[in-house]
């Protein structure tokens, strides 16, 4: 046993732990964008180190960054239901050009109140959020087409569509429909718009993947609950031996949309954009969406039988093979795009499902992976023709060859693995090197932390024939899908500062000389600046109970990584975190008479602790004049308020 003592890092993890070691002063090779699950956010990790680099606030408020608390960011979380401060972010789609990562944007879906967000990788901030009407539970999202023409949003829950909304739930089979939405992405700006929705039978959409290369004009969606159950799905949605993968000819759908085959439906959904020149968001309510009904659009969608509640639906790098992972299935079916096209051409159908042709299983099947493991969920690919499938029930990753369908290797995960990520795994050119498993259970991996334990990512080296566990690292929320991209594609574009002279925020202070305090009725606008190490103005008087105070804080720094924060005692709100050259606004309703301190919350300098000020709140109806300054000292006096001087500037 003596000889078994770990020697250095390499033996400690059983695999080659030194592969995860990124020496101080060195960068990671990949960014890993991970779904934050029920945190609603998107954490970013470095690979191979597993270091947490940033948590991008997306669908949930983040008081740490002022997201959803500052006046400028509040509109980003507006929906047709009003302000929604939380969601459940499940899946990631990095923008692609020619089915390869281009490092411009990353998309995330809101699973609860259906939305898609676009994050700009120049700033690592959420630039746009669009709500999806006629959807309920935006799970099958935000997968992306070959040149980022569209991201998709398939509804998990079918629901009544149209005017007749108040129906008995047990009329599901008659009244409930599914939709998949195609959201156009502007080539240059990335701006999203709902190009069209396809009305579908009332199944539940789970995941999806676009074709690539030869299959690039198609999109594949896994669906469960072809039984159309509306209660106890655990039993009632598992009755049939096969559910479906829905194949959509989106090029054809696009033609139908352009040819006016769709119907414009009246709906209501929010479309929110963040403008980096005004440093503020706007929310616009849209009221129309184009819906394509397959009845009027032949040859647009087909169903392919797929065993038992398929979850993963993944196309290999060549675009020829589509892998369905039925979480209750005993095999992994692999479909052939060529065979699908032949079956469509020769009308090799196995009847129809609500009028949609069902392709014959054997006619479109390349083959099945036999005895892969228990509970296949999701598949990613390397550049050598191999696939990696996660097995939830048997807690393992299984490596198999896409052509031969032979299992090549299997390795345990700890435990209950959901999705996987290979750098570039969903693209035409996988980078390989690692597969990262995102696991639910860590009972004997991490120190106990009460009833809930951190979920984990586990990174395996896949450079050799056999997979080797290299590293465990904890994740936030619940990790669903993730994607990894070479750092060099992203880091070169990273914004360091916002140029102050380009700041178009209407409340900017272009220098300390421009700071002021203005009263408009009961609104008090404080135009404030922050620079190491003082706030201007830092003494404010003449504000009263009943006023609504807006602190418009401009960070005058023009230096990378020098944000300033702003917080005031008793605010029913978060802090502001203001980037160099940016203006952000905190609203505050003083609730009592007194002196209220405010300060910079982001440790900025040696005199950060001195970066503070006071605002005096007088009773409602008081006639204390408005006064503000920084750096002006007066001899101590003890005269009544009325003798105070007025404005200092």
């Amino acid at each position: 046993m003596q000889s078994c003592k770990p020697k250095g890092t390499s033996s400690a993890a059983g695999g080659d732990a030194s592969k995860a070691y990124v020496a101080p002063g060195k960068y990671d090779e990949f960014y890993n964008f991970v779904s934050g699950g029920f945190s609603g956010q998107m954490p970013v990790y470095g690979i191979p180190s597993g270091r947490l680099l940033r948590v991008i606030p997306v669908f949930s408020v983040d008081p740490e960054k002022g997201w959803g608390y500052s006046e400028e960011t509040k509109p980003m979380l507006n929906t047709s239901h009003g302000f929604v401060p939380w969601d459940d972010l499940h899946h990631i789609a990095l923008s692609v050009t020619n089915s390869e990562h281009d490092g411009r944007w990353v998309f995330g879906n809101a699973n609860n109140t259906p939305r898609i967000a676009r994050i700009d990788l120049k700033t690592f901030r959420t630039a746009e959020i669009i709500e999806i009407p006629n959807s309920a539970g935006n799970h099958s999202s935000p997968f992306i087409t070959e040149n980022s023409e569209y991201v998709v949003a398939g509804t998990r829950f079918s629901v009544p569509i149209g005017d007749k909304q108040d129906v008995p739930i047990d009329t599901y089979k008659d009244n409930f429909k599914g939709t998949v939405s195609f959201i156009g992405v502007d080539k240059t700006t990335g701006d999203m718009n709902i190009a069209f929705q396809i009305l579908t039978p009332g199944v539940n959409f789970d995941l999806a993947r676009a074709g690539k290369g030869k299959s690039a004009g198609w999109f594949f969606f896994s669906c469960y609950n072809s039984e159309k159950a509306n209660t106890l799905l655990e039993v009632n949605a598992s009755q049939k031996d096969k559910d479906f993968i829905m194949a959509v000819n989106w090029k054809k759908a696009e033609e139908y949309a352009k040819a006016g085959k769709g119907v414009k439906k009246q709906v209501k959904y929010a479309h929110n954009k963040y403008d980096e020149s005004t440093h503020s968001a706007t929310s616009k309510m849209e009221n129309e969406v184009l819906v394509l009904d397959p009845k009027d659009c032949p040859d647009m969608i087909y169903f392919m039988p797929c065993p038992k509640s398929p979850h993963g639906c993944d196309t290999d790098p060549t675009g020829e093979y589509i892998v369905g992972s039925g979480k209750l299935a005993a095999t992994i079916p692999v479909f052939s795009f060529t065979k699908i096209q032949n079956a469509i051409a020769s009308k090799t159908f196995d009847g129809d499902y609500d009028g949609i042709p069902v392709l014959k299983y054997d006619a479109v099947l390349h083959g099945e992976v036999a005895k892969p493991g228990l509970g296949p969920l999701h598949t990613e690919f390397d550049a050598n023709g191999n696939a990696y499938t996660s097995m939830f029930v048997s807690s393992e990753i299984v490596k198999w060859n896409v052509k031969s369908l032979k299992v090549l290797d299997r390795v345990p995960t700890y435990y209950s693995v959901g999705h996987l990520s290979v750098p570039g795994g969903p693209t035409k050119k996988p980078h390989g090197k690692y597969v990262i498993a995102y696991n639910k259970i860590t009972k004997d991996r991490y120190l106990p932390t009460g009833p809930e334990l951190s979920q984990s990512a586990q990174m395996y080296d896949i450079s050799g024939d056999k997979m080797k566990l290299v590293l465990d690292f904890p994740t936030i929320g619940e990790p669903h899908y993730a994607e990894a991209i070479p750092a060099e594609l992203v880091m070169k574009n990273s914004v360091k500062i916002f140029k102050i002279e380009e700041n178009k925020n209407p409340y900017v202070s272009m220098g300390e000389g421009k700071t002021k305090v203005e009263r408009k009725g009961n609104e008090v606008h404080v135009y404030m600046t922050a620079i190491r190490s003082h706030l201007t103005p830092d003494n404010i008087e003449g504000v009263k109970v009943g006023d609504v105070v807006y602190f418009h804080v401009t960070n005058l720094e023009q230096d990378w990584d020098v944000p300033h924060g702003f917080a005031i005692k008793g605010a029913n709100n978060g802090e502001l975190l203001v980037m160099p050259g940016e203006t952000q606004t905190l609203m505050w309703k003083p609730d009592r008479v007194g002196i209220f301190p405010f300060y910079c919350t982001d440790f900025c300098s040696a005199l950060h602790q001195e970066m503070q000020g006071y605002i005096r709140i007088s009773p409602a109806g008081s006639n204390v004049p408005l006064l503000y300054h920084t750096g002006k000292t007066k001899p101590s006096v003890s005269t009544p308020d009325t003798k105070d001087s007025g404005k200092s500037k």
Partner: protein
Amino acid sequence: MKKKFGLAIAAFAIFTLSCKNENKESNGTATNSNTESAVTTGGQENVKDDVSQKDVVKVAAASKDHTTLVAAIKQAELISSLSNAGPFTVFAPTNAAFDKLPAGTVDKLMKNENKADLQDILQYHVTTSSLKAEYFTDGMNVGMVNGGNVTVSVKDGKIMLNGTATIVASIPASNGTVHVIDGVLVPPAAK
């Protein structure tokens, strides 16, 4: 049981040997990453927890009427899977149910060379959802982990599976439900 214990020792010996020789380590890992990691971590099923409700494996292990089943689950290497979040429904044949099989059947299945058959049979007794007794309806099909279906009949409150085994007791577990049955379910012949 003895056999299983012997195997564990053998696996441990392989691991010890392989790590004695640093050069061989990668080869050892390559032949069986399962073995190595199992030794490294102990596995989810070995997490010490006397407070939580028992999972389906621990429920079976606590029953003196299920020693054959538990030994078979170990031999089929299904303990780790069944200790998972699940949820599972396990149809758990009693020792008496196994005794009803033709003489020598169980001994044969417990041999290493027949492990795949044993796995197939045991996986025909498990489904990945937690089905309480009241969820079963007459004529219902239940898709089992091995890919086969079990047909349920419900008559006069008696729940029968494939017309051959009757549910005699139902025990809730932390990760599913165990239904004790009086017969072994035989999977339909493989395609």
